């Protein structure tokens, strides 16, 4: 009982901050000249106490206004242009050669690399370190193979089925094998090639996340077949529903900036279903199965943290203020979650562990993902704290109570963290112009998107596992293979020759 007091104090401090923070916030009153739609000279003339402008200042103000308007017009023209079909006659009206903004493009090329780094080697090392020594290669290879496989699938049909077309649940095949996407094709203010590859890195990491739930006991062939089916029938439709103008975006206005539902809940639920269908590892939970390489876990978590700037800030698809704020709230939420998890573990267990603080950081990263485009720093603190507390409970308490063997807590951290983040995304907001943070109830769309994703992913995962079962003559490694270790059994290699 007495342990509750410090926990309640932390809770109070962290949750009170977004509420208290609102009154203390001063609106940031100076928009940049590029984004300004209120030219300086207009303000001067309507404000009774304005100083007189010199002719030169007036001329500069007029020039700035013209520049700003031209830029805005260019932006809207660019998005109009990129939405036209190739044979639309109106294309000829667009005299400008390219609407590609070089700053946005440069950033997005970098963001793509950052997100790829999150899978190889970020997630690979994070999971690899958590595995037992005899299975380290199996985890690394599953992540690497997933990268290769999903690249091909996304290129051949994934991008088209996800993003092209007007269906409620699935896109169309208009861009199969990237038909119509060339060097100069534009998507917003960046080349479509860059948008395509950026989204590909999301398609890579999402199935890779699931690997951690069934690690150390699933046949490699079954993994590949299961992930292919799940990618096709769960990742692509949820993507389309949230980001492709489908059911959740269209009918419910669900907010998911960088993938709380599309990536984390989607993968988390798949992980839960998979680990239940596969069954527990031999010896679980009686035999201790500690991570074989905790430094790997920390390195992996650090690479995920740094790479996540590409994941969240990159989801703005531009180098602008929203991206900057997305990076800010990502950092704040993650740090809060890492700290809160560390304190919670310290209070409840007596010692703050390395695996714990790394896991806390990941929980924060997951939870801030859907909110990163709409929340402010105080909201980020609240989201990070909530994610740490809820995921701590799920990964340590609930898992043991319910008895499922989620090897690396994919559901506990990614699934639950994603749910917490997706829901709180409908509560905490920041006004883009004034900087004032506020709480507003937009929970309905969020709750619906969470429920739809859970049900969709759960059902598809179950069916995909059953199909893989038929194709592979069983999805679980044999008893002997499991004891020997998947590295030798599936890959004929040992991780370490020490």
């Amino acid at each position, binding site marked *: 009982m007495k342990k509750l007091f410090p926990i309640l104090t932390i809770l109070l401090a962290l949750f009170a901050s977004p509420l208290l923070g609102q009154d203390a916030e001063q609106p940031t009153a100076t928009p940049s000249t590029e984004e300004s739609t209120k030219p300086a000279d207009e303000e001067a003339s309507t404000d009774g106490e304005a100083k007189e402008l010199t002719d030169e200042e007036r001329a500069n103000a007029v020039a700035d206004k013209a520049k700003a308007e031209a830029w805005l017009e260019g932006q809207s023209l660019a998005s109009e242009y990129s939405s036209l079909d190739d044979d639309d006659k109106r294309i000829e009206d667009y005299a400008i050669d390219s609407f590609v903004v070089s700053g946005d493009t440069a950033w997005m090329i970098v963001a793509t690399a950052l997100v790829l780094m999150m899978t190889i080697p970020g997630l690979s090392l994070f999971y690899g370190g958590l595995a037992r020594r005899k299975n380290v290669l199996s985890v690394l290879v599953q992540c690497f193979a997933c990268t290769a496989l999903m690249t091909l699938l996304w290129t051949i049909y994934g991008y088209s089925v996800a993003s092209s077309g007007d269906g409620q649940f699935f896109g169309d095949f208009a861009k199969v094998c990237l038909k119509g996407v060339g060097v100069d094709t534009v998507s917003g203010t960046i080349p479509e090639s860059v948008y395509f590859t950026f989204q590909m890195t999301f398609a890579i990491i999402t199935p890779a996340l699931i690997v951690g739930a069934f690690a150390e006991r699933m046949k490699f062939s079954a993994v590949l077949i299961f992930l292919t089916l799940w990618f096709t029938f769960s990742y692509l439709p949820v993507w389309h529903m949230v980001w492709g103008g489908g059911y959740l975006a269209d009918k419910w206005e669900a907010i998911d900036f960088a993938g709380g539902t599309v990536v984390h809940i989607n993968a988390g639920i798949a992980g839960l279903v998979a680990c239940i269908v596969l069954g527990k590892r031999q010896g679980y*939970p009686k035999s*201790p199965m*500690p991570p074989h390489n905790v430094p790997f876990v920390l390195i992996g978590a650090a690479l995920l943290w740094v790479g996540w700037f590409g994941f969240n800030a990159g989801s703005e698809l531009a180098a602008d203020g929203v991206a900057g704020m997305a990076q800010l709230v990502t950092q704040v939420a993650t740090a809060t979650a890492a700290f809160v998890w560390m304190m919670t*573990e310290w209070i409840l*267990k007596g010692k703050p*562990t390395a695996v714990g603080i790394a896991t806390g950081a990941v929980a924060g990263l997951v939870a801030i993902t859907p909110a990163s485009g709409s929340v402010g720093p105080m909201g980020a603190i609240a989201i990070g704290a909530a994610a740490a507390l809820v995921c*701590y409970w799920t990964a*340590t308490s609930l898992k*043991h109570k319910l008895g499922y063997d989620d090897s690396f807590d994919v559901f506990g951290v990614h699934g639950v963290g994603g749910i917490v983040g997706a829901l709180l995304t409908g509560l905490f907001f920041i006004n883009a112009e004034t900087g004032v943070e506020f709480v507003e109830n937009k929970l309905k769309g969020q709750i619906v998107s969470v429920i739809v994703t859970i049900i969709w992913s759960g059902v598809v995962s179950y069916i995909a596992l059953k199909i893989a079962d038929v194709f592979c003559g069983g999805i679980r490694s044999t008893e002997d293979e499991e004891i020997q270790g998947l590295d030798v059994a599936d890959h004929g290699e040992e991780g370490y020759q020490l």
Partner: protein
Amino acid sequence: MKKIEAVIKPFKLEEVKDALAEVGIEGMTVTEVKGFGRQKGHTEIYRGSEYTVDFLPKIKLEVVVADEAAEGAVKAITSAANTGKIGDGKVFLSSIDEAIRIRTDETGNEAL
């Protein structure tokens, strides 16, 4: 010839090696092992579950000596490896039938 096997605490290895050198014993074989007697292990936490680790790291030392040198060697080991706390280890003696030096084919005490 007698074989002396000693299980000792790892940080005592240098001291024991020096003590044996002082009584004229220069060769030995050392292995890293795990074990426990009456010494308790420690608790580790992993994602909220605690479990006790019983096995503690130890060093196993093996020397084969002439019969006359056995008593002196054992005394050197026990006094150097002693810390007074639980977990200091144990020494075992057994008889060796034969010893051969591979390079020269010497046998018996000359091989030691």
